[in-house]
């Protein structure tokens, strides 16, 4: 609608600018992330190595260890940011987030199932991990939608959040039950995963995550018009000509795919899906064609920074990125909650 009111162009220009700036910031934090670790490589040498130069040692550290991890972090950050934005639009609830709504608990269950069946996290079976977490996420989503559905009112927002909390607790109990039956190493891995530790650090992990993001993210970006319409309310959306039920189902599936695939490699990280869209909305306004790409970039920045902080600040041990995100994100969420009517 704003496109017809004149300010649309100004908004568009601003959105482009914001995207450019955020892309610049993302680039900087990525280079900083590549530079940080037990073996430090100066930023300029990082760039040099990336474009073919550098010593053999630099190349090995960068291409074999740092780069795949950063790729996973970037993809997961973008996926989580976009998933949160889509969920908030669908539920017309500014507090919606894949983690709060219990999708991550479903993904966690999927991961524990995978671990107990395959046990091999490095080989080609790693490609299947996102499929397992996606299945878990879908199960959680179906449960939550069924529980919050009302024949006359559709999905009732308050029930969505309450059943999300309940489903999350139930699935976590099952996950805990399963993970306690695993051997010690696998249990330790699961515990770290649950806390939101970016564990995908091989190229195969990046490869497992990549198709989910490069297929689903463009689809979501192409649906910004539907998201705009849906966020106006069901009746208005139907009036404009949106097939509300079908679009909501498709977009919900896409959001589950994005978040489940992301957490499969980056661990059960909450709050990015909540914060990123909020910041994006403050920066570029509520139109999804602007909001969605900005939310992706914000997600990337948050996750790369959190992972780098968690890795470097607490050496020799590492703090999972999810803990860093929660320590920053939860107070922000509570702040928002105390401000919203």
């Amino acid at each position, binding site marked *: 609608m704003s496109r017809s009111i004149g300010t649309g162009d100004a908004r568009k220009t601003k959105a482009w600018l914001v995207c450019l700036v955020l892309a610049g910031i993302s680039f900087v934090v990525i280079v900083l992330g590549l530079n940080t670790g037990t073996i430090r490589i100066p930023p300029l040498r990082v760039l040099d190595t990336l474009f073919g130069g550098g010593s053999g040692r630099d190349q090995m550290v960068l291409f074999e260890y740092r780069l795949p991890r950063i790729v996973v972090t970037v993809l997961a950050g973008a996926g989580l940011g976009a998933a949160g934005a889509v969920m908030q639009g669908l539920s017309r*609830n500014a507090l919606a987030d894949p983690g709060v709504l219990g999708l991550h608990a479903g993904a966690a269950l999927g991961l524990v199932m995978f671990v107990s069946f395959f046990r091999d996290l490095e080989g080609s079976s790693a490609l299947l991990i996102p499929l397992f977490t996606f299945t878990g996420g879908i199960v959680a989503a179906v449960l939550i939608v069924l529980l919050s559905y009302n024949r006359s009112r559709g999905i009732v927002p*308050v029930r969505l959040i309450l059943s999300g909390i309940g489903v999350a*607790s139930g699935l976590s109990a099952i996950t805990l039950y399963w993970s306690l039956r695993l051997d010690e190493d696998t249990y330790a891995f699961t515990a770290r995963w649950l806390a939101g*530790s970016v564990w995908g650090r091989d190229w195969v992990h990046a490869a497992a995550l990549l198709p989910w993001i490069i297929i689903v993210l463009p689809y979501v970006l192409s649906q910004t018009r539907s998201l705009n319409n849906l966020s106006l309310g069901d009746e208005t959306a139907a009036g404009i000509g949106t097939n509300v039920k079908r679009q909501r189902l498709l977009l919900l599936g896409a959001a589950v795919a994005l978040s489940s695939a992301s957490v499969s490699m980056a661990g059960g990280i909450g709050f990015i899906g909540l914060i990123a869209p909020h910041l994006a909305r403050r920066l570029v306004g509520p139109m999804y064609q602007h909001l969605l790409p900005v939310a992706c970039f914000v997600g990337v920045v948050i996750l790369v920074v959190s992972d780098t902080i968690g890795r470097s600040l607490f050496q020799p041990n590492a703090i*999972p990125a999810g803990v860093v995100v929660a*320590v920053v994100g*939860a107070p922000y969420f*509570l702040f928002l*909650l105390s401000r919203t009517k």
Partner: protein
Amino acid sequence: MRLKGRTDEHAVSSEGTASDASSLTRPMLRAGRIRQILLFIASAVLLALSMFAAISLGAKDLTLSTVWAAVFHYDRSLMTHQIIHELRLPRVLGAAVIGAALAVAGSLIQGITRNPLGDTGVLGINAGAMFVVAVSFAFFPNLPYGTLIVLSFLGALMSTLLVFGLGASAPGGLTPMRLTVSGAVTAALLGSMTSGIAIYFDLSQDLAFWYAGGVAGIKWSQLEILAPILLIVIVWSMGLARSISLISMGDEVALNLGINLKRIRLLGLLTVVVLAGLSVSAAGAISFVGLVIPHIARKLIGVDYRQIVPLSALLGAVLLVLADLGARMANPPEELAIGIMVSFIGVPFFLFLARKERRDL
């Protein structure tokens, strides 16, 4: 519409608020009174039976007469008596006291906030206690149990202040919905920080049972501190129950009857914090006991908290004793975490209640 919303605010599970309200002021019908007395007797018998079952069943099954003898005529030279006296008895008594404490805490919270989904786990109170316990494990690993209790209580107090302060400072005030969400997020934050500490200091093993909850490790020395305080506080909450019944019917009703709302709310919350903090210090974070039991009690006995609180105490004790027994028996010789056992019972119930939630954000 608004008025109706007020009266049925907490009575999601009980129909006919008007008649319930009058049952507080009008003399009880004789039949109702007898039914109540029978309910209490039945619950007490159930508790006694489940405690006896929990003492006699286990890795070594013991006969009823041995259990009886071990409890009432303890003979130190007998192995079976020692098993019962040193291992089973503190465990079962601990489960009973903690179950009662959690259930009473839940019923008080539900009454004070008029929120049928209130629970010390859901509202992040347990997570606060957990967090402080984790911190003290990391930095002061050899604290005596008494100090740990105090710290755990302070942690519960901290998160309670946070959740209720945030909820109350928002425009529109402390709605049940906002309380639930800010509680869940606070629980997530503190839980995340707890696991961060556990991972960083390599405490996962030590903290595992705090996470999942368990009464296996309770010793007589702990029970001697814990049980008297909890029992006194439970009795004290029965004294609060009359005022809480009135609060649960709405602010106007309570004000008209001359209740000091702020004072009762504060006292009630403090009571909840003591109950939750002590329980967590002994058994870890056990969610859903405080959610499920008061609902069952309310279904059985009506909306008067003078009856809900004591019945919750009895039934909470039964649930935790049985859950602990189930956790021991499910897959011997391994023990299942008691929190999982309780969740498997509690979560479907929570979802059923959330399904009936009619209010909006």
